[in-house]
């Protein structure tokens, strides 16, 4: 943006002119802001380097076996990431299974049906929901959601769908399912507000054409409008996924902290972020600390990939919407 504007002189050359620019302040301003822009670069590169450098020990000792081993025993010095990766992925996928239909439905209502006043009021409240700190979601989940899950939801699922392996076993209230539900609530606002924007980008002609062909309001929405905005909606889903993967506090408080792989969703589990939060300050051996850093690196790479996908999809819809 704002390169040389048409009215300014043609680009001058040579050291004399550069000193002239330095004296009137432009070059100073450019260099100062450049320095601060560079700090972003330095910090991000430094962060990646730091994670890589301080996880050398387990990388060399376990290699790729780190990702597939489910042994986590600080006493014997065995560290495997599988229970944590499993827990992170299972809770995030559960969160999406709940949040995507609900979020896309709400976005359709806000973008297509609601009168502007209601739509903007609802959107305002939903964006406030996105601002609630995660530890507060954790607090509510721990004291309000856990009893509800333990006394009503999980017994009901066990009675009706108990023949499936995933809804069997002891009911604690804590566990994968509860963590998934609280993550769903936390990702919902992101999915709604970005899907809504994607739906609002859809040209009116798209709706009119479908209605003119005799489609009902729902058919026009579902068959003409939603497919047009699908990339943006997928983008919102990936963004929600990235947030769910990296979410720490709420999950730590309700997942149950058991470093094993369980088939049942009622079982206690663990997630990558939760194990780092719980054990990092208490880890004593270098191998333990570095294994936790390596888990952090795995989480970081996971979210980078998901975020990049989300951004690409959102950019792609924005381009198409404006063309």
């Amino acid at each position, binding site marked *: *943006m*704002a390169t040389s*504007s048409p*009215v*300014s002189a043609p680009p001058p050359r040579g050291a004399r002119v550069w000193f002239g620019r330095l004296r009137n302040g*432009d070059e100073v*301003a450019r260099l100062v*802001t450049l320095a*601060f*822009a560079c*700090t*972003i*670069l330095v910090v991000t*590169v430094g*962060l990646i380097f730091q*994670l890589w450098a*301080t996880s050398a020990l387990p990388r060399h000792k376990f290699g790729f076996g780190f990702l597939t081993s489910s042994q986590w025993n600080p006493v014997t010095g065995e560290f495997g990431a599988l229970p944590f990766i499993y827990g992170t992925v299972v809770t995030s996928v559960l969160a999406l299974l709940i949040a995507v*239909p*609900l*979020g896309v*439905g*709400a976005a*359709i*209502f*806000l973008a297509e049906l*609601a009168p502007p006043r209601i739509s903007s009021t*609802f959107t305002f*409240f*939903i*964006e*406030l*929901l996105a*601002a*609630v*700190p995660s*530890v*507060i979601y*954790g*607090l*509510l989940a*721990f004291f309000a959601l856990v009893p509800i899950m333990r006394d009503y939801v999980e017994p009901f699922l066990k009675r009706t769908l108990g023949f499936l392996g995933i809804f069997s076993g002891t009911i604690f209230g804590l566990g994968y399912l509860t963590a998934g539900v609280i993550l769903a*609530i936390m990702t919902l606002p992101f999915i*709604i507000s970005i899907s809504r924007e994607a739906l609002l980008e859809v040209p009116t002609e798209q709706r009119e054409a479908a209605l003119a062909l005799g489609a*009902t*309001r729902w058919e026009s*929405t579902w068959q003409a409008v939603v497919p047009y905005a699908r990339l943006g909606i997928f983008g919102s889903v990936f963004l929600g996924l*990235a947030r769910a993967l*990296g979410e*720490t*506090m709420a999950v730590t*408080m309700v997942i149950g902290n058991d470093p094993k792989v369980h088939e049942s969703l009622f079982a206690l589990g663990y997630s990558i*972020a939760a194990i*780092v*939060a719980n054990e*990092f*300050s208490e880890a004593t051996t270098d191998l333990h600390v570095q294994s936790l*850093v390596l888990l*952090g690196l795995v989480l970081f790479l996971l*979210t*980078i990939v998901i975020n990049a996908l989300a951004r690409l999809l959102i950019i792609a819809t924005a381009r198409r919407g404006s063309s």
Partner: protein
Amino acid sequence: MTLRNRWRKILSYMMLSLTGVCAVVAVATLFLILGYLVYNGWRSIDWNFFTQLSKPAGEAGGGMKNAIVGSFQIILLATAIGLPVGFLAGVYLAEFGGKTFAFLVRYMADLLNGVPSIVIGIFAYAVVVVPMHGNSAWAGGLALSLILIPITARSTEQFMTSVPQTLREGALALGASKWKTIATVVVPAAYRGIATGMILGVARIAGETAPLLFTSGNSDNMNGLNQPTASLPVMIFYRALSPYDDWHRQAWAAGMVLLLLVLFANIAARLILSRGIAVQK
């Protein structure tokens, strides 16, 4: 009307009302959260919460004065580092950035923005806590500033680029140098947007817990900036998971205070932005 058409009509109404239900459920969640938190927090809060230090496990009573002060210290440190850096980096991206390098910085800022906050905590631990041999408010402040910098940079850039080019050309035509143009024309034209972005960023870091767990740590006293420092979010985490009823009450009270602060900041930021458009177009 054939049966099939009638069915299509019914299906249409059904699905459309279902989307309305989804929206109502989403908004209702906010009010449930707010209501439940204020209900429990209001019952638990008293003057001791604001005026007394927290007590170690097993002792009854106590408040969260240290956590409130500590939170403000850490946020102040984070703001003092994060806002200037983020703002100036944003100015670079909007006004001086070329093609390749600005793209790189923008990409890195987005990358940093997407880093899970617990990973930021690991980084701040390695950079500050290890050399200082212990938790400190500095470490917590730095960790939070790393979250604040990319948010501020990107929002500053966004609002500055939406200032019309003609304003810049006008100032340049009058003989102003480029930095004078930026300082006296572009930034004032975009200041509402920039301020909104900054307030939202600070509100975001105010509730962050994960990066503080092993950077600023926790403490029952008010120490200097070089010592472990309590903060509201960390306190909520430990108190909620404790086995004591009294501590649970304190967690609720702290949760209410924190949530009200964050929501207040968010609403204020949105009011600033809507009170007059950021840029006259």
